[in-house]
């Protein structure tokens, strides 16, 4: 027994030293890169996105879109060459802060494009703002991303509309276009994104003369929704508002239909994924930032370029990441400097900049002013363009 534990100790020491050596080497390599990146004409941009985990398709699209924006400019802005550093946050707030810290302190990025979801972007936005790194998220729709308790985070922007607007548009669409009068809402109590959409939908739907039959929460790890869905089924609402991401709404949608709920499903941009269960969600509507079927010339060109490079139709996340990255590159060009303060000022002053998802002017909170698109889910895996709704 004694001999064995000694061997065990030796083995552990060996493993530890190998691990140390490995990380040590990694550190050196990064150091070399840093040395290479410190010349005056190189600007590093971090792309923060969930490349694994529950919303990985969001992350893949984001990196593709942002990279396309850089490549279309030939990897250069004015006199500066742009180096892209992707980082995986696994859609986990803690992990996001860790990798963002690495981007800022080790890679010395000047700007960050990302992250994708609000829950990861909010903590990172504070970090970026404190360290004076310009940050622009393509898709984080929660208000708290750019404003913290009434105080503007000056270095943080976004390329998408915000949660109140999405909830408002969804409510307006349900009332005016679909002529529905009753709705139930089911949301994740631990996620700022779904809470924001749910609250704003409720507020605007009630204000517009509709009735909310149920306003119920669940938690992230729940898989059994039978109890709440049975309650909802009894009240038979015309609309079931599900403002969560595609995995969860697919699971809820399936159980809702099994409980005999025939309501129209409505959701937010979190539905936009090829992994959504299209058969179950057939006929549902969701608010989005852009549609590949939109006939405008900017969208057409973007879709062609994206298809040529990646072989698939870009989703909204790709379009918004492309827009976010373009806005950042445009600001760098206007500022003609790698000084984050100048880039931030140039970004804030952006006016009628043509992006894929519309003309962007920033309001005082770093939010773009533009219209929203409504899409319908089809059983064959397609998303049909329905209409656009202005704020």
């Amino acid at each position, binding site marked *: 027994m004694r001999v*064995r534990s000694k061997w065990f100790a030796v083995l552990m020491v060996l493993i530890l030293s190998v691990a140390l050596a490995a990380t040590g080497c990694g550190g050196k390599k990064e150091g070399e890169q840093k040395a290479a990146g410190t010349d005056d004409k190189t600007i590093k941009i971090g792309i923060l996105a969930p490349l*694994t*985990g*529950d919303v*990985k398709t969001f992350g893949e699209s984001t990196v593709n879109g942002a990279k396309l924006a850089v490549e279309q400019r030939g990897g250069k802005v004015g006199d500066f060459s742009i180096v892209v550093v992707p980082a995986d946050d*696994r859609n986990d707030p803690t992990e996001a802060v860790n990798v963002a810290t690495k981007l800022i302190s080790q890679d010395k990025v000047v700007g960050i494009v990302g992250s994708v979801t609000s829950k990861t972007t909010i903590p990172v936005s504070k970090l970026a703002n404190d360290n004076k790194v310009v940050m622009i998220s393509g898709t984080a729709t929660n208000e708290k991303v750019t404003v913290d308790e009434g105080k503007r985070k000056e270095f943080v922007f976004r390329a998408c509309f915000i949660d109140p607007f999405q909830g408002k548009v969804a409510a307006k669409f349900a009332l005016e276009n679909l002529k529905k009068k009753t709705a139930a809402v089911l949301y994740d*109590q631990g996620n700022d994104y779904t809470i924001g959409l749910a609250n704003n939908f409720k507020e605007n739907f009630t204000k517009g003369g509709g009735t909310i039959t149920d306003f*119920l*929460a*669940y*938690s992230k*790890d729940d*898989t*059994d929704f*039978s*109890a*709440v869905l*049975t*309650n909802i089924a*009894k009240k038979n609402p015309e609309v079931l508002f599900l403002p969560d991401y595609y*995995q969860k709404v*697919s*699971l809820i949608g*399936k159980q809702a239909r*099994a409980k*005999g709920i025939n309501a129209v499903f409505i959701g937010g941009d979190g539905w936009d994924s090829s*992994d959504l*269960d299209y058969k179950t969600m057939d006929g549902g509507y969701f608010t989005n930032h852009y549609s590949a079927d939109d006939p405008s010339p900017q969208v057409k060109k973007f879709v062609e370029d994206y298809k040529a490079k990646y072989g698939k139709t870009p989703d909204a996340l790709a379009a918004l990441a492309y827009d976010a990255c373009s806005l950042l590159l445009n600001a760098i060009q206007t500022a003609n400097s790698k000084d984050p303060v100048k880039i931030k000022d140039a970004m804030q002053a952006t006016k009628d900049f043509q992006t894929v998802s519309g003309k962007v002017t920033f309001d005082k909170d770093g939010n773009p002013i533009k219209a929203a698109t409504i899409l319908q889910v089809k059983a064959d895996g397609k998303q049909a363009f329905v209409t656009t709704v202005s704020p």
Partner: protein
Amino acid sequence: MDHLIVDQIINGLQLGFMYALIALGYTMVYGVVKLINFAHGDVFMVGAFVGYFGFSQWGLPFPVAVLTAMAVCSILGVTIERIAYRPLRYAPKIAALISALGVSLFLEYFGSLKFVFGPNYRVVQRPFEEVQYHLAGITVTNIQIIVFITVLIMLAGLQFLIYRTKIGMAMRTVAVDHNASRLMGVNVDNTISVTFAIGSAFAAAGGVLYAIAYPQIHPFMGIMPGLKAFTAAVLGGIGIIPGAVLGAIIMGQVETLTSAFLSSQARDAIAFGILILVLLIRPTGILGRTEPEKV
């Protein structure tokens, strides 16, 4: 309104029987080895994945896929016991507990690696359609019936195994005293291995059924159900086999009725609150017996 209550009770039963599937394995292993096998929920996860690969990718018929998952997981269970628990059998209890936590985290993160299961959520295409039966205004699905029957078979099978077979007798003696069992000619190591094999096979069956009932799987899916099933086992009296089913049914009812009639936000808080209450009043669980301390 009455109707609604009946529907909700059926929802609660489905959830409760799901927990029972996992809790049975938990409680059996505890009963024999006196070890809380925290990796049980993750063996459950591995079972769900193997079953899913079986019926959706390797083209196995559903029952064969379940059996494959059970076989793979019993080997996994025995291996875990051999590597992580056996060397610590006579070490302080806390060492084995920490080792169990380590195995649990290892399985979760090893499973998350790209070449294993990958970190992503997968949608499970059910190998058969969900069919609803309407009996006197109550809706029951075929999946609920399968789960119910499986739990009954497992319960009866375990009771038979433990009280009517030779290996069961060996398990009971090992549960009382390792050294005395060894003196009586019982092979303690083998008995414990068999215990882990059966417990893990049960976890695998539970995992596959869980993946059918809630058709989405990922490497961390075992944590919450594992925790709830453990709670159920403690509630019923850990180590007592019918107690696991009783505890699981109570957990399922409390959770469902709370979210149906009180608040869907308070469901876990109330479920675990009841656990604390029961433990304060009856520390050995509902069916637990207080054994006199041996001097």
